[in-house]
C-alpha cells in the first residue's frame, strides 16, 4: 500500500518559508481552528467543496446533479446562486455536481496523492533548488499529521542533496511525528500564546502538548528550530507578550524566531467554503511600530528575529 496524504495546494517559486526558491506543499487536516487562519480550506481532514461566486453563472446545474439534496437555490445580491448544505455535502463521495459545473465555480480542494506522485512533481524543480539553495516546505493544515509521508518525501529529496522544511502548530503525538522531525532540516514551530485558556479561546485547543513538544524539540534538536510568532490583534499584539515569549525561548536555549504580523489575505477563502470569517478583531491592524518594538524586545532577550509576511 503506497503512502499517500491529502494535498490541497502546491506552490512553486516561493521565496518565503526557507532558503532559496522553494516549492510549498500544503497538507490537509489540522487539530487547531485558529480564528485568523488564512488556509481554512486545509483545516478539515477531507477534501473541501469550494464555491467561487465570481465564476458562478447561476445555472444551478449543480443542484440538479446533486444526489444528496445538498444544494438549494438562494437569491443573493440580486442573483440566484447555489446554497450548499455543508453537512450533507461532506458526507458525499459521488460529487456529481463537479462534472456538471460548466464554469468551474465549484471545485474540490484537496486530493489524496501518493508520495510517488508528489515527488514526480517536485523532482522537476531540482535544478532550481540546486541553483538557489532552495527546497521543499511542508505546510498546511498540519503536515505532521502525516509524518511518514513527509519523511518519505524528505528522504527522496535528501538523495539529491535537497532539504525539507516543516511548518507546524506543534499539536501532535511525539512518537508518531518522530520520523518527520528527524527528516526535516528545519522546523518552523508556531507559538501563539503561552496562556492555555487564551490559546483554547483562539484556536479551539489548550497548549500543554504544544509547549511540551516545543520544550522537547529545544532539548533534542535546537539547531533545526525557528519559532514563528504570529502577531494577532487581541491575542498576541502586545509588548509584554513578546517579552514573555523571549524569556521563555531564551531560557530553553532557542535562538531564532520570526514575527508574522496579522493579515487578512485569506478572508476570501471563507466565503468559498460557506463560512463566516471567525476572527473577531479582524478589522484591527497591527501597527508597524509595535512589530518593531516586539522585534527589539525579542532581540534583547538574545534571539535572532526577522519579520516575515
Amino acid at each position, binding site marked *: 500500500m503506497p503512502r499517500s496524504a491529502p494535498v490541497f495546494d*502546491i506552490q512553486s517559486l516561493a521565496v518565503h518559508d526557507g532558503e532559496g526558491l522553494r516549492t510549498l506543499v500544503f497538507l490537509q487536516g489540522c487539530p487547531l481552528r485558529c480564528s485568523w487562519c488564512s488556509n481554512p480550506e486545509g483545516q478539515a481532514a477531507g477534501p473541501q467543496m469550494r464555491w467561487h461566486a465570481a465564476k458562478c453563472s447561476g445555472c444551478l*446545474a449543480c443542484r440538479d446533479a446533486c444526489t444528496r439534496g445538498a444544494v438549494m437555490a438562494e437569491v443573493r445580491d440580486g442573483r440566484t446562486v447555489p446554497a450548499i448544505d455543508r453537512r450533507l455535502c461532506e458526507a458525499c463521495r459521488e460529487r456529481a455536481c463537479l462534472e456538471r459545473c*460548466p464554469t468551474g465555480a465549484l471545485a474540490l480542494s484537496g486530493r489524496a496523492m501518493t508520495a510517488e506522485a508528489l515527488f514526480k512533481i517536485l523532482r522537476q524543480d531540482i535544478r532550481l533548488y540546486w541553483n538557489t539553495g532552495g527546497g521543499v516546505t511542508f505546510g498546511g493544515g498540519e503536515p505532521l499529521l502525516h509524518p511518514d509521508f513527509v519523511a518519505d518525501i524528505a528522504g527522496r529529496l535528501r538523495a539529491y542533496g535537497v532539504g525539507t522544511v516543516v511548518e507546524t502548530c506543534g499539536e501532535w503525538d511525539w512518537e508518531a511525528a518522530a520520523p518527520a522531525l528527524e527528516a526535516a532540516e528545519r522546523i518552523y514551530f508556531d507559538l501563539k500564546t503561552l496562556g492555555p485558556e487564551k490559546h483554547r479561546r483562539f484556536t479551539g485547543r489548550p497548549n500543554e502538548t504544544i509547549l511540551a513538544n516545543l520544550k522537547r524539540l529545544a532539548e533534542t534538536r535546537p539547531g533545526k528550530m525557528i519559532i514563528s510568532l504570529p502577531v494577532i490583534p487581541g491575542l498576541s499584539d502586545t509588548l509584554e507578550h513578546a517579552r514573555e515569549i523571549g524569556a521563555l525561548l531564551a531560557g530553553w536555549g532557542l535562538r531564532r524566531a520570526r514575527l508574522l504580523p496579522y493579515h487578512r489575505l485569506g478572508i476570501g477563502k471563507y466565503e468559498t467554503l460557506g463560512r463566516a470569517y471567525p476572527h473577531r478583531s479582524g478589522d484591527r491592524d497591527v501597527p508597524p511600530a509595535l512589530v518593531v518594538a516586539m522585534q527589539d524586545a525579542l532581540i534583547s532577550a538574545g534571539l535572532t528575529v526577522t519579520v516575515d509576511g
Partner: protein
Amino acid sequence: MDFVPREIMGSPSSPRVQTCYDRYLAEPLIIDAEYLCLYTERHRQVAFWEEQERRAECHAYALERLTPVLREGELIVGGKTRYVRGAVPYANYAADYILRELRREQQESQDAVTDLGTGGGIARVHALAESGEFEVFCHKFLISPQDKACLWECAEYWSDKCMQAEGDRLWKTHYPHAGWIENGWRIVLYTAPHDPAPDGRFVLDFETILGVGLDGLIDRCKAKIKETFAQPGAIEETAKVHFWRAAIRVLEATKTWAHNYGRAALALAEREARPERKAELETIAANCLSFGRRPAGFHEALQHFWLAYLAGHLEGAHLGYSVGRFDRYMAPYFQADREHGGLTEERALELLELLRIKHTEIEYVASFSWEGLGSGNLFQNMMLGGLTEDGQPADNELSLLAVQAAINVPTTQPTLSVWWTPGLSPEFLLKCAEGVKTGVGFPAWFNTDVYLKHELGRNPQLGLGFIRKYAAMGGCTEPILEGCSYGVVQPGFINHVKLLELALHGGRDPRTGIVMEERPVPGDFESLAAAYRRFLETAIRRWQEYWNVVMEAHARTVPLIFCSAVMRDSIERGRNMDRGGMLNNATPTTLSSGLVNVVNALAAVKAVVDGPAAMDELRAALAADWKGYELLHRRILDAPKWGNDDDAADGIMRDLWAFYCAAVERGPNYLGERYDPSMLAISTMTPFGKACGATPDGRTAGEPVADGVTSPHPGSDRNGPAAVLRSAQKVDHSRIRGGLLNLKFHPSALRGVDGSRKLLQLIRTLFETQTAFQVQFNVVDSRMLREAQAHPEAYRDLIVRVAGFSAYFVELQKSVQDQVIERTEHVL
C-alpha cells in the same frame, strides 16, 4: 485600499531633472508639420533628381531650416519637433491615413478592432482641444490650424508619390496574389499596412560616429568618389557616386542642423542674466558646435550621441530604432572623463536622467491601427551588459549608472535590456534586480548565448567575436547587430488564431464570410492540424512576397541616406541599406503572434474531439460562443494547455515551432538572403483577439489572444510559475530572432537583497538550459493596478511592462490594462 507598495522607488537626482520630468508629464501630444512642409517644399523642386540624391536633398533642406528649441534647465539639447511631446507626420511614407483623418473618414477595416488609451498626456490633449486653439488629430494628438492646413496640402501632394502609393502601384498590379493580401487585411489575418512607419529596428554605428565624427565620414565619401573617377569604367559606378554625393549632402546638413542648436544656445547665453545658466548655455553651445568632430568629455559625447541619434530618427518613420550597446561605445568617453576630466558620479547620473527624458519626448503618429498595436511606444532599446569581443563580461560603471538613471527617472523610453551572461558583475546584477523591483518592467533579460547561436548560424562569415561585440536589440525583443544590420525588417504580424479559424472552416473566415481559399472542412485532429499548417505556409509565403515588392518602393522613394552613411559598410560599398550596403542583410523577419492559442486549441481538439460528429459539435459551440455548450467548454478548458510542463501541449508547440521556422526560412528576402523567423506580440493580442470568434482553446469570441511568445494564455497556467519556465525551456529559441516570456511578481515576493538574489537565481536557472531567450517581470500589486484604473490621475507615473516594452499604465487602452492585471500574479 490595501496594497503592497513597490519596494524600490527612485526620484530624480536633482531639482533640474525634476523640472524637466514634470514638464514632460504635463505636456500634451502635438503634431508638428514643420519638417514635412520643408521636405515637401524642396521635393516639388527636385522631383526628377536621381532617387538617392533627391531623398538626401529634401531631408537636408529641411534639416537646415528646422527651428532649434532649447528649454529651461536642459543640459542636452535637441528635439525631433518644436514641442516637448511632438510627432512628425511622415506623409512621404504614407499620405492616405493622414488624408482620411483630415477628412474624418473611416480608417482601415482594422480600426474597428483597435482601441487606444485615454489617460495621462492623452487626457490633456482632449482637455486642450476643447479650448479651441488646437484640434484633435488621430485621437490623441493636438494640431494647430496652421499645421493642419500645411499638413493637408502636403498629404495631398504625397498621395500619389509616397512610398505607400508607389508600393501599391507595384504590388497591386504585379503581384498575382494581391487579392489574398487585401482579404487578409479585411479578416485581420495580418496587421494593417505597415507603410506609415516601416523603418527602424536598427542601431546606428555610434562607435564610428563618435570616433571619427561626421567629418571623417564626409572625407571618406569624397575619397571614394575620387577613387572611382580615377579608375577606367567609372561610368558604371554612377549609382555609387550618387550615393556618396547624397551622403555628403546629408552629413553636411546634419552638421548645420546641429550647429544651429549651438548658435541658438549662444544667443540665449548672451541674454542670460544668471551666471550659472549662462555658463551652462555656453557649454551647450560648444558641445553642439563641435558636432562633426570627435568629442572629448562625457557631456560633449552625450550631446553628440543625442544629435546623431535624433538626426537618424528624423530621417525616417521609425519604430524600434534603438540605442544599442550604450555602455560599450560610451565607456571610453565616460572613463576618460572620470579619470582625467573631473566628471563626478552625480553629474554623470544627472546627464543620463536628462537623456532618458529626451528619449521619451519623441512621439510618433501612424495609422490608428498601428497606434493601437504599438500602444504609442517607439521601442527604443538600450542594451547593457553582454560580452566583449573576446568573451569577457562587458558591464562597467556606466552600465550601473544607466540602470540607476532609469530607477530615478522611470520614463518609458529607452527600454532597458540586459544581455545576460553568467559572468556579469554582482553589483550590476543587483542593480538590475533593483530596477525590476521598481515595477517598471526593466531591464528585460536576454540570454546572450541563444542569440549568438542564432546569428552565428545565419552569418558565420561575421565571426563569433564580432557578433559578441555588436549584439544589440533593434526594438523591443528583436536582436540585431549594432551599426551594420539592415533595418526595415518586417511587414507586420501574422495572426495564428485567424489561420486556425480558416483551417476549422475550410478556408472561410467566420466573422466576415470571406473565403480565402476553399479547402475540405476538417473532421478530426489530424486533418485540422494539417489544414492549419497549409494555411500557415501560404500566409507566410504571400506575406513575404508582398513585402518584397513593397520594399522596392521603399528603395525608390524613401531610402535612408543618413542612416546608411553612418552604418557599415555603406560608404565602402557605395550602396545605401536598401541596395545591399549593410554587412548583415539577413535581418528581414517574418513575425507572428498567437501561436500559444493554436497550440492549446490543437491540444484540446486532440484530447476532446473523437470524430467528425464531435468536430461538428465543436464548430457549433464556437459559433454560439459556447452558449448552450457550457460543459463542452469546461472540458476544453480542462484539456492540456501550454505552460504547464505537459508534453501533450508542449509537444505540439515544439512541432509547430519547428514547422513555422522552416516555412519562414524557405522564403527569400529582397536583399537576396533568407527570411528570419521571429515571434513577438507588442499589443497585437487585443486587435487579433477581437477579430476572432471563439476558438477551440476555450477562448471566447473577441477575447485577446495570448501575449508574448512563450507566455501562457492568461489563466491557463495551472501548475505554477516553475512549470511555465520549464515549458519555455522546451522550445529552441536559437531558431528564431526574438522571444518573450512575461512573469509577474508580487512586490512582497522579492523583498530585500535576498529577494534580489532569488530573482537572479531564477533567471540563471531559466537561461542555463541554453534554450530560453527572454524573460521580463512586472512587480506590482494587481490591486494597485485596479486602483490606478479607477483613479488614473493619481498614478500618472506608474509604468508597467506590457509586451516587449514598458508603458505608462494610465495611457494604455483598457483592454491591455486588463490583460496586464490578469496575467497570473505570483504571490509568493
